[in-house]
């Protein structure tokens, strides 16, 4: 690996013109020559779209893609020295293996003898010597994938793109191919950009991982960084198993969460609201009197190399991985080393939306009425004869005024009845945070709201969003 950047993506954004959907937003990445970079994220996070923009199948709406310093963002795929291994292999069914692999070389008008040499060399590399005359349909999935890799590598690309290449293989085959790909990468020195939703695959294979969600980069770092120092709750939840708690800094290197006060390593100012990540393997089981917090064991599952123990501590739940077992119903103590606590400054999840003042002096949001007293919005104002007057008795013209309504995630209630609340939406993400679930709800208007709720809802549930007006705060939007 050298220090030279082979490819740089500068504030790449992709918005589809037909529906206005933004698949990737402000994506920035620098990749060094010879690096193995993985885009990791749940489906629909924009990782494949980003890869397709590097390949040239999609053109970014804005931003630069610099390959060796040259902006190739608007080049067609055939003008880029980059090759792709497709998820479903995409081998040409009307050609034999030789013609498939030689496809790119023939287009370059290379001499037939040289093509022959290169094809047999690359076949040897993927362990399929002598397969030249075989038909594509006679090959197994794993063999087809090797041919697809060979077909891309034979062109000696500057960058090899791999779009979930192992997704269609069975587990054993996948593990084998992971190792082989890793070896191939080490041997060839070609830059690999790999897309997967499998966090284990990403951790095993990559030099650098880019975690993505909802079209945005969440964190870029080495596998160790990503695992040990997740930047936010999403990364912590997506990579490995974790206990995530809401907490607050109570002093220098001290945090209170999960019903206890713990010493930690992250220097965050006192009073800051934080999200705390605790990996299950970092929890130490102690005698009840020695633990910082205590709890009752609710389940124990044997997992081979460790036990997975769920403990209920007050209203919090903690999952522990330990080589020591425990009995269901036992009360145990739990403590944590400072290194085992990962503090992330909590993001501001206040929901804000604009409402208008209706004719009957109620607030109106997208044709639903918030039954509240408008005088709350204007301090000191009063209503007389259906008109609004301010403190000094002047009449207020409400038709032009927009009101900014704010509400905290924990104050929004989810309801089965989509008609119940101010609006409704679909749950697109959920994270368990120790004593409650944190949901991302995409409303029918396309906004993503964070809602905290102690009850479990399912992904893709359609829910009504009930916002009690006494929990709302109002301000006038100028």
């Amino acid at each position, binding site marked *: 690996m050298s220090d030279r950047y082979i490819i740089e993506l500068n504030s790449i954004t992709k918005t589809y013109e037909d529906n206005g959907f933004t698949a990737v937003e402000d994506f920035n990445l620098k990749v060094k020559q010879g690096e193995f970079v993985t885009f990791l994220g749940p489906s629909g996070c924009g990782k494949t779209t980003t890869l397709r923009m590097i390949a040239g*199948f999609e053109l970014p709406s804005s931003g630069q893609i610099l390959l060796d310093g040259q902006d190739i963002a608007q080049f067609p795929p*055939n003008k880029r020295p980059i090759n792709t291994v497709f998820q*479903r292999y*995409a081998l040409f069914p*009307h050609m034999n293996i030789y013609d498939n692999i030689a496809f790119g070389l023939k287009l370059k008008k290379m001499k037939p003898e040289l093509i022959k040499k290169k094809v047999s060399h690359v076949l040897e590399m993927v362990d399929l010597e002598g397969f030249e005359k075989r038909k594509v349909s006679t090959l197994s999935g794993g063999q087809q994938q090797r041919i697809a890799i060979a077909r*891309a590598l034979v*062109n000696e690309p500057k960058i090899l793109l791999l779009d979930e290449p192992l997704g269609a293989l069975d587990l054993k085959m996948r593990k084998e191919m992971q190792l082989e790909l890793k070896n191939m990468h080490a041997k060839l020195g070609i830059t690999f950009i790999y897309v997967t939703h499998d966090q284990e695959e990403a951790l095993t294979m990559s030099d650098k991982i880019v975690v993505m969600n909802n079209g945005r980069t969440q964190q870029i770092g080495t596998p160790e960084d990503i695992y040990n120092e997740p930047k936010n709750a999403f990364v912590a939840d997506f990579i490995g198993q974790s206990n995530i708690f809401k907490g607050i800094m109570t002093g220098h290197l001290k945090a209170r969460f999960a019903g206890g006060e713990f010493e930690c390593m992250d220097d965050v100012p006192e009073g800051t609201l934080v999200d705390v990540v605790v990996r299950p393997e970092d929890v130490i089981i102690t005698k009840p009197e020695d633990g910082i917090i205590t709890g009752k064991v609710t389940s124990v599952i044997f997992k081979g190399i460790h036990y997975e123990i769920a403990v209920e501590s007050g209203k919090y739940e903690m999952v522990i991985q330990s080589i020591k077992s425990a009995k269901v119903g036992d009360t145990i103590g739990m403590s944590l080393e400072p290194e085992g606590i990962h503090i992330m400054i909590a993001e501001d999840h206040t929901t804000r939306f604009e409402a208008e003042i209706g004719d009957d002096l109620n607030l109106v949001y997208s044709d639903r009425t918030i039954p509240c007293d408008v005088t709350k919005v204007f301090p000191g104002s009063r209503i007389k004869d259906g008109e609004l007057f301010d403190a000094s008795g002047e009449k207020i013209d409400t038709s032009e005024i927009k009101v900014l309504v704010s509400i905290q995630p924990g104050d929004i209630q989810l309801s089965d009845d989509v008609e119940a609340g101010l609006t409704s939406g679909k749950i697109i993400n959920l994270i368990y945070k120790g004593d409650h679930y944190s949901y991302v709800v995409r409303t029918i208007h396309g906004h993503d709201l964070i809602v905290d709720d102690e009850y479990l809802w399912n992904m893709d549930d359609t829910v009504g969003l009930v916002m009690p007006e006494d929990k709302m705060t109002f301000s006038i939007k100028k």
Partner: protein
Amino acid sequence: MKKTFARKYLGIPYAIFLVLFVIAPLLVLFYYAFTNATGHFTVENLIGFFTDSNTIGTLLYSLALALVVTLVCLLIAYPIAYVLARSKFNSKSVVIMLFVMPMWINFTLRLTALKEILTAIEGNLAFHPFINTVIGMTYDFLPFMILPLYNTISKLDGSLLEAARDLGAGEIQVFLKVTLPLSMPGIVSGTAMVFLPAMTNYVVPDMLYNSTYIMGSLIGSYFSAYDWHNGSMIALVLLLIIVLFTLLTGSEEEEKRGGALL
């Protein structure tokens, strides 16, 4: 009701139908083809077919006509099918319907209309009998070419085209090296759907005043002169040609595992 009612009895009506309307007529055809007016066995009709320059001429004319019609249909249908199948156009089905809809209008009516248009353009239809027949048949058979092509092309795996571009192929090379070879099943079945009817259809030339006989009209002329024997022999030879053609294209299609419907 009997308990032993087996599903196979459901096939009886179809078996009867097959025997009455397919096998029996074929046997009658065979009988007439290999007998003479006195009812004795003969191969003279067969020899007659291949020695009569008139018959051979008609066969060649029919073949040429069918080939030209098929080629014209293919040249018109492929771009239409390609554009329709590859476009993201929402109301594709409406456009396809527009091409298929003429089939719902009475055949004679369509041809009469076409005749009037051609007469208006050419003055006298008798001057260009071959071209007129080609136009008439193309008009008639075009949907049969478009549909299988559309089916095949729209089922083409888009990632194959992307793979080809990724490996360095430009638009034209992608088309020649991937799209076209992979649409062969559609081309084959479209060709079969057009070529075979074009060989035998005699209504179109008849209505468009093409006085040159094609195979269909030749058989008709023998039959209307009560010469069952020669007429049958021509029909039999034509049948064999068609069977041969179907076998050839069929085996190719099977090999390609083509998904062409219709």
